[in-house]
């Protein structure tokens, strides 16, 4: 019943996440990302795919953004302002705060630096943000009467969230990017045991089990410390948000602990603005920061100061964080050129570098670089590589699946080959279906929805009182009237149903004649029958009424002599349809005749 359409982007690919989910007639778009690698139309998802004609607003019920990375929200202004979407967009508070800063930065680079036209404007970003509804963690938001969403903590970056989308009893969990191991500033992802019908999980590290984070941290700190003690300078090229903050905290606390004095600089720009938000959203950070912020907010850096161009020539040791992270342009490259010649200095690359960038070249061991203007730059400084990634590894993904206990799993945001392995593992260990659709592929998953029915408390109590204690394992039989009205189901007692529907009660009675060969008088026959029944039906109330009839519970038995043959008595057995079971049992019992012993 859950129809799943993998729309414009994502699929078996990293970057440009955009997923479309149809769940019980509701259409939800998850993330709206762009691809960093392209500069033409391909960078945005193809939204015309969603509806050939007709407005997006009519088709989509809501859009959910999991976190502020551009490959998850980069196409948002384009989508909402240029393509046209007016419905609600949901994201968490930190994402809402930081997202526009990044979008604006992205716009600046594309439009102002590269001179592209036909791109969204600052005003569009603002207008787009007006459509955003911010949600809190674990807050259930009713998008409309049936559709509700709920956010869970996902680690990864500040404000990253996993979303549970629920319509009726069907639900989907979309993880976005998440991290199951805590780091220096964020905690680990966590989700309820919500048992969704489908879990859409990222799978960037589908085939990796990572080493403990501590070794990497320690190595990093040791290297920085040694270089600084030697009097060297350390350059750490970073992207503005996410890992940069983690490294800052790491260094800051280390400086604090070890009482170091060498200055740490952070190249200014959007970082400062973003840092401001990091300070504000303390509740989204890890335990340590949350617990100590009363004494001191960890993001109020004591040792880390804003960088100025002139500082790069200062003598003595220092540590500089500079953007961008791949050393391909900007401040980090400028500093790198200044410092590369001294073997005392060091550059630490904290992440992956795309081929063709200076970062990639030096990491692959090239010592002589050709710069613009045919300059040859000899790299004497030490080059180090440290990977600090905030995605869940294979074990983390499995752990999340174990926590959520979904009925189906769908892997996105990863490479096809790697996903194949993980898929196999998931199917093998959890015995659930696992899918991995390609771009533009649609996956349909059939669910087995359970239909909730309201039952009146009186009826429930009455029914549970009969029989044994409720047992989890055994289904229980109940008697009642099911009323289906205005899309709602109710189970009520028959009397109430009659009352509500304004119907008079009709009684259905079955009457049956049983012939018994008995030469005695009528009342004697009745007495025999009475004794017999009394003997057989020990648990029921059998009564002999003064008018010569017998009642067993509400079943009436009367005996008359046969009009023709006095030796044959006719027993009239009459019961209502509710007592059908007992009634038919009684007739069959009486048909067998009375036992001889009683005579």
């Amino acid at each position, binding site marked *: 019943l859950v129809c799943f359409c993998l729309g414009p982007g994502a699929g078996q690919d990293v970057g440009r996440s955009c997923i479309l989910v149809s769940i019980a007639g509701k259409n939800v778009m998850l993330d709206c990302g762009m691809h960093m690698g392209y500069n033409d139309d391909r960078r945005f998802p193809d939204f015309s795919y969603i509806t050939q004609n007709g407005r997006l607003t009519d088709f989509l019920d809501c859009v959910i953004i999991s976190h502020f990375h551009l490959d998850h929200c980069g196409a948002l202004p384009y989508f909402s302002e240029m393509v046209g979407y007016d419905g609600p967009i949901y994201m968490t508070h930190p994402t809402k705060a930081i997202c526009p800063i990044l979008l604006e930065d992205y716009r600046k680079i594309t439009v102002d630096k590269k001179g592209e036209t036909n791109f969204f404007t600052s005003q569009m970003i603002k207008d787009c943000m007006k459509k955003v509804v911010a949600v809190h963690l674990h807050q259930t938001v009713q998008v409309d009467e049936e559709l509700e969403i709920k956010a869970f903590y996902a680690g990864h970056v500040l404000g990253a969230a996993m979303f549970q989308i629920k319509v009726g009893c069907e639900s989907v969990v979309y993880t976005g990017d998440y991290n199951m*191991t805590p780091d220096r500033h964020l905690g680990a992802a966590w989700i309820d045991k919500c048992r969704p019908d489908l879990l859409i999980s990222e799978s960037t590290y589908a085939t990796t089990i990572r080493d*403990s984070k*501590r070794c990497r941290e320690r190595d990093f700190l040791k*290297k920085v410390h040694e270089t600084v003690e030697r009097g060297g300078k350390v350059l750490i090229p970073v992207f503005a948000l996410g890992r940069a903050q983690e490294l800052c905290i790491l260094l800051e606390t280390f400086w604090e602990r070890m009482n170091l004095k060498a200055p740490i600089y952070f190249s200014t720009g959007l970082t400062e603005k973003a840092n401001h938000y990091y300070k504000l959203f303390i509740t989204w950070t890890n*335990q*340590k920061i949350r617990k100590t912020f009363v004494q001191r907010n960890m993001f109020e850096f004591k040792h880390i100061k804003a960088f100025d161009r002139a500082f790069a020539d200062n003598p003595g040791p220092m540590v500089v964080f500079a953007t961008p992270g791949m050393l391909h342009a900007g401040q980090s490259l400028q500093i790198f050129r200044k410092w590369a010649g001294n073997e005392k200095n060091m550059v630490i690359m904290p992440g992956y570098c795309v081929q063709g960038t200076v970062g990639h070249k030096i990491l692959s061991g090239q010592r002589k670089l050709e710069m613009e203007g045919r300059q040859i730059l000899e790299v004497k400084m030490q080059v180090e590589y440290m990977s600090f990634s905030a995605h869940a590894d294979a074990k983390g993904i499995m752990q999340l699946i174990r926590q959520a206990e979904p009925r189906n799993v769908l892997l996105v945001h990863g490479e096809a080959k790697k996903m194949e392995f993980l898929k196999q*593992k998931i199917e093998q260990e959890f015995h659930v279906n696992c899918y991995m659709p390609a771009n533009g592929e649609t996956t349909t998953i059939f669910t087995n929805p359970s239909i909730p029915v309201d039952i009146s408390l009186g009826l429930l109590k009455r029914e549970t009182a009969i029989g044994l204690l409720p047992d989890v394992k055994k289904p229980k039989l109940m008697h009642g009237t099911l009323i289906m009205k205005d899309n709602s189901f109710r189970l009520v007692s028959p009397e109430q149903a009659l009352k509500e529907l304004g119907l008079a009660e009709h009684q259905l009675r079955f009457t049956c004649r049983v012939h018994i060969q008995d030469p005695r008088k009528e009342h004697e026959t009745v007495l025999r029958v009475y004794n017999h029944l009394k003997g057989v039906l020990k648990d029921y109330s059998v009564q002999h009424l003064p008018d010569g009839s017998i009642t067993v519970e509400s079943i009436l038995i009367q005996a008359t002599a046969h009009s023709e043959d006095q030796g044959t008595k006719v027993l009239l057995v009459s019961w209502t349809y509710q007592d059908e079971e007992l009634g038919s049992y009684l007739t069959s019992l009486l048909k067998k005749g009375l036992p001889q012993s009683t005579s």
Partner: protein
Amino acid sequence: MAAHLKKRVYEEFTKVVQQQHEDLSAKKLRLTKPSKSAALHVDLCKATSPADALQYLLQFARKPVEVESVEGVVRILLEHYYKENDASVRLKIASLLGLLSKTAGFSPDCIMDDAINTLQNEKSHQVLAQLLDTLLVIGTKLTENPSVRMRLVEVACKHLTDSSHGVRNKCLQLIGCLGPVEKGVAKEVESQAAKDVQKIIGDHFNDQDPRVRTAAIKAMLQLHERGLKLQQAIYSQACKLLADDYEQVRSAAVQLIWVLSQLYPESIVPIPSSNEEIRLVDDAFGKICHMVSDGSWVVRVQAAKLLGSMQQVSSHFLEQTLDKKLMSDLRRKRTAHERAKELYSSGEFSSGRKWGDDAPKEEIDTGAVNLIESGACGAFVHGLEDEMYEVRIAAVEALCMLAQSSPSFAEKCLDFLVDMFNDEIEEVRLQSIHTMRKISNNITLREDQLDTVLAVLEDSSRDIREALHELLCCTNVSTKEGIHLALVELLKNLTKYPTDRESIWKCLKFLGSRHPTLVLPLVPELLSTHPFFDTPEPDMDDPAYIAVLVLIFNAAKSCPTMPALFSDHTFRHYAYLRDSLSHLVPPLRLPGRKLLSSPVSPSITPHEDPSQQFLHQSLERVYNLQHLDPQGIQELLEFTIRDLQRLGELQSELAGMADFTATYLQCQLLLIKALQEKLWNVAAPLYLKQNALASAAAKQILEETYKMEFMYSGVESRQVVIIHHMRLQAKALQLIVTARTTRGVEPLFGMCEKFLQEVDSFQRCFISELPHMQGSFVDKLLDLMPRLVTSKPSEVVKILQTTLRQSTFLHLPLPEQLHRATANIIEPTGESDNPLRFTSGLVVALDVDATLEHVQDPQGTVKVQVLYPDGQAQIIHPKPADFRNPGPGRHRLITQVYLSHTAWTEPCQIEVRLLLAYNSNRSKASAKIPKSTWSESLEALPQPENGIEGTIPFSKPVKVYIMPKPARR
């Protein structure tokens, strides 16, 4: 408050008597005296609405009920219970019944039947649950009676089918607490409803309500605690509960599994989905490991803690917990730890790290990779990386316990522990350092590990650094480079934090004595000697140089070839250090220096026995002094005291004992001296001046006795008696002195009475010890007691005087161990010439750091005193958190003292010292006020702090130069 209540009750009662006398007497036949029950009854009768009645009951619950009237009160409550229609009032009554049956001394069997009867007709589930709770209280009070227990269990079983979770909860709790534990009892009553409690409880493991499931597991655990052997069949049931949706169920289930694994470690269980079988303890271990990555941190903490105590687990399971089986792109990857090890063993230590250094090597078989169901795999890796520090601490503790029992595991977990030294939370770092210390005899640190350990020495937290010094004291280092590295880092630490001096020296002392052969090749380098040239003599006061020397001298102790490498000044420095820092520098047998060292070294080791003998001999000698003339006695005592004091100085082990005895003899000497004065024979009243000596002596004896009682740890009751006896004598002396100097009888009356009271209380407290005190002052005094009580003060004084003079000297038995409480203020050092300046009227914080030895309960007794030059004294109570406990008998006080004063014209010195507060009531058991369990609400009120009677200074005062400046306008 209480007084007010009492008054109110009384008023109510009097009202009753006037208005409803007949009514009351008809009903309350059994009540012999006006009691609480009567008042309560009236209150309840008057109550018009349930809310009123509830109010009365609430008020009633605030005050305690005497044991005698409990039953009456219960009857009244029950009577109202039956009449009451409102469920909330019944609930309160039910809870009151429970509280009442807890009253000490009351046996609730008389009300049990009634309590069970009330259950029959009760409709409200809440009240029912409360009643069962009451029954539980009754049952726990009557545990000796099996039939009562059986009956209660039966009642509980009957209500297990109730539809409310609260009732079922309580029933299970009741069964858990009272269910039959012994097999025999169970058989006797097999016919009855309560048969196999385990089965009954086990059936509720699948209850629909998670609270009931939890209660069922808890009841099972309770049975286990009470000694019932749980059946192994429960294990599979419990395993299913591990996957429960609710954390409290999972948490309890983990405990249950642990219990079972301890009960049946060796039995074999099958592995599902394969036909293999493993030991139960291994299986349980795997399952609990699995819970370390549970969704709820409460469960994670629980699981991590329990892992530590599963010592029977097989080693390959254990080692799996540290192995996460890394891979990258489906290829096996080595962990950073493995790489470090390899790097180390291949000989090239400091290679720069290249990108792709951690490139994965061999391909792995996709089928063989288990991502989640691998049981113990990586449990500790996960636990140590957990988000919550509580889990991390629990994991570190568990690692510690497991490593202590398995050396091979200790070796393996080392890398992980070392990693924890960089945790973001200080507590975790500290805990892991302590853990490492505890397992240090099982391990040897590799150089790269040592490197990481030493990096932490720069930590700004003092606790961390000191813990690390302690750790280094007992680690094994494998190479001489390691030692060198450690020394260099410690010296770096010393320059950065000069206050760590003592601790670093101590650390190097042990490092040296543990690794003499590794230090040997380093000696020339460390002392910077040269084969041909003389090098300049280093500065003797440089702490870093002293540190190096401490390392070398301690190594030289067990390495006789080392002194040959020393240069001349080293020997001189040795002599100096041996004298000034004798606790850090061991005696050495130096070649050609025999003369210097020989008188010192032999006197240390074989000294112990003779000195002990000497102590006893001198004591023996003293006990014979009865036969000497007064002059002789005094001289003997004086000599002995001198001897003992000297002995205490020489022999640190006997210092406590020697000082203690010396103090006692000193008291005796003072007493004798005071009594021997001629003026006693003068009949006339004395001048103040004349008795100065005697009264001073009395005062000093009193002080000394307090010191003896409270400053020594290990004092037993036999000594306490003697001390108190001495004090009594001093008081008698005081009384005599006052009697002889004051005119008039009035003040004497009071004093005499007080003295007699004290004699009386002495007799009461130490009645068991009196037979040992033949011929003593007290002994004689007690004989004369009847006379003393009736006679006039002047006569009393006369009697006292004679008894005091005639009484014999009591033999002081020595306890096994006796240590004198000492305190040493490390900081402030008192050497600074720069006054601490601050604005008058504001406060300045002074850091105080002191070590305390042999102080019992320092949190309660140790105070800091600040003496200002104007004679003003301030006593500061340090916070309990300021005391640390680095070892048995040792404490460390690190606190801040706030000083303030009005402006001075020039800087002046204040004195800071430590005091030991005492309270003579503290030692007596009678001081404990019996607490009533009845009204918790009253007890929550702050009670007056048990008073401090006096203080004993027990540290040398330290002078601090301060200067309060007048505030600038």
